[in-house]
């Protein structure tokens, strides 16, 4: 389940680093129009990916004991 986030997709950190790199490149003002549009598109996709990974963690911190987790997982597996 946790590994399903994507074997080919970049890790959160790699994606975030790439976004930083893209913004630096764009800030430099050296990118051509074509490159700018490509970079903006790539950056948006990466941010969505990062946001997705953040969202996938959950919506609120949930505390439970190991036995509770095991019970829940077994219930899920049984149903």
């Amino acid at each position, binding site marked *: *389940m946790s590994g399903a986030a994507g074997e080919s997709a970049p*890790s*959160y950190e790699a994606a975030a680093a790439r976004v930083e790199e893209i913004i630096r490149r*764009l800030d430099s003002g050296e990118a051509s129009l074509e490159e700018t549009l490509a*970079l*903006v598109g790539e*950056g*948006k996709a990466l941010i969505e990916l990062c946001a997705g990974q953040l969202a996938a963690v959950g919506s609120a911190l949930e505390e439970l004991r*190991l036995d509770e*987790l095991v019970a829940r997982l077994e219930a899920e597996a049984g149903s």
Partner: protein
Amino acid sequence: MSHLHADPAASGAAPGAAPRAPAAGIPGSSLPGPFPVGHYAGALRTKLRSFARVQLLGELINLRVSRARVYFELRDADGAIPCAAWRADWEEITARAGGAPREGMQVVVAGGCGYYAGSATSSPGFSFDVLDLRLAGAGDLLARIERLRKQLHAEGLLDTQRRLALPALPRTIGVVTGEGGKARHDVLAALQRRGWAGRLVWAFAPVQDRHAAPAITRALGELASVAAVDVAIVARGGGSLVDLLCFCDETLCRTVALLSVPVIASVGHHTDRTLLDDVAAVSCSTPTHAADAAIRVDCVRARREQAQAAARLREHGRRAVLSRARTLVSLSRAPAAHLERQRTRLHQQLREIRASSRRRAEAEQRVTQRRAVVLERKAAAELRECRERRPRELERLSLALAAHDPQRTLERGYVLARSPQGAPLTTAVQASAAGELKLRFADGELDAQVRRR
């Protein structure tokens, strides 16, 4: 100690020393001597070395390492002994002991008394010459831990956890800690501070004593067996090394080394590393750090940064297109603007040409008018001349002509002879041939007849 001083002097040293420079003793003293001090020192060394070799137990303090020798003291509540070893020997001794002892550590040393006799230029000194050493108490534990660490290292078990990929954003974190400990609170607080919104699974276990190790091992094994758990933290507050012994348990360390889930150790000890610290994927000094290591992404900041990055990207995209579109528009406008400029210029030139030609025509006209005036004047002058000069001329000419008029000649007495047909007869032959003549006089004409030829 008093008998030590007396003994060598009285028995062995005195007779040999006697022959040399017999100096006077203290008057009235019944003691033997005086003996040369170096001789006595040598005898003392021999006597001290003859003492049985023993093992001593005490606290090691004041460890000093010089170029050739290592010095320290061994103390307990009742006394102390200065100890020394050759530097080269010391390194072998400590290697055998499983590590160099540190200040305050309980050690057992083996060796015997020694005495450096000194010389004219160096001070003498007593020391217990150390030939071997063992770390006792906590020191002993450290030595055992060190041996186990080497063993695990040799088996490659210190690296297996470090090779596991630590997810930047785990969804489920398992935590092994004491149920009522401060570490539990610290981990939770740190996770919340970083805005992490995942599932936190507690696997409570005693984390204090020697008996804790099996419980911790079991808890970690169970956490790791739940596929949902992405990373496991073992956390507890600080404590003495003895308190932390459970984290040096061989079974625990071997179990952790073979887990497929990365383990973050934070057993809170700065000076002594536990074996778990060496085996775990990440070792932290506090539970708070452990939580930070588990969630490498500060979710609160990450969300903010994502929003900022997205805004900047949008802005870049918008600006890139907009500014270039503006450029394009201005470029596309350029030919039209150029044409317009050219047209305007042509119009201007045309107007200028017209104006100029008008000016020129006007100028021409003025010139023509001037010329006409001149011509008129000339014509008038000419007319005047015709009217005035020509009659005079005519008169002069007519007078000149009149001068040549035959009438004038006739008036002067000449006669013009002509044939009856009117042809002038200028010779006698012509007149004779004609026979009849018409003679013209100034006042009239007469017919005449030639009589003789």
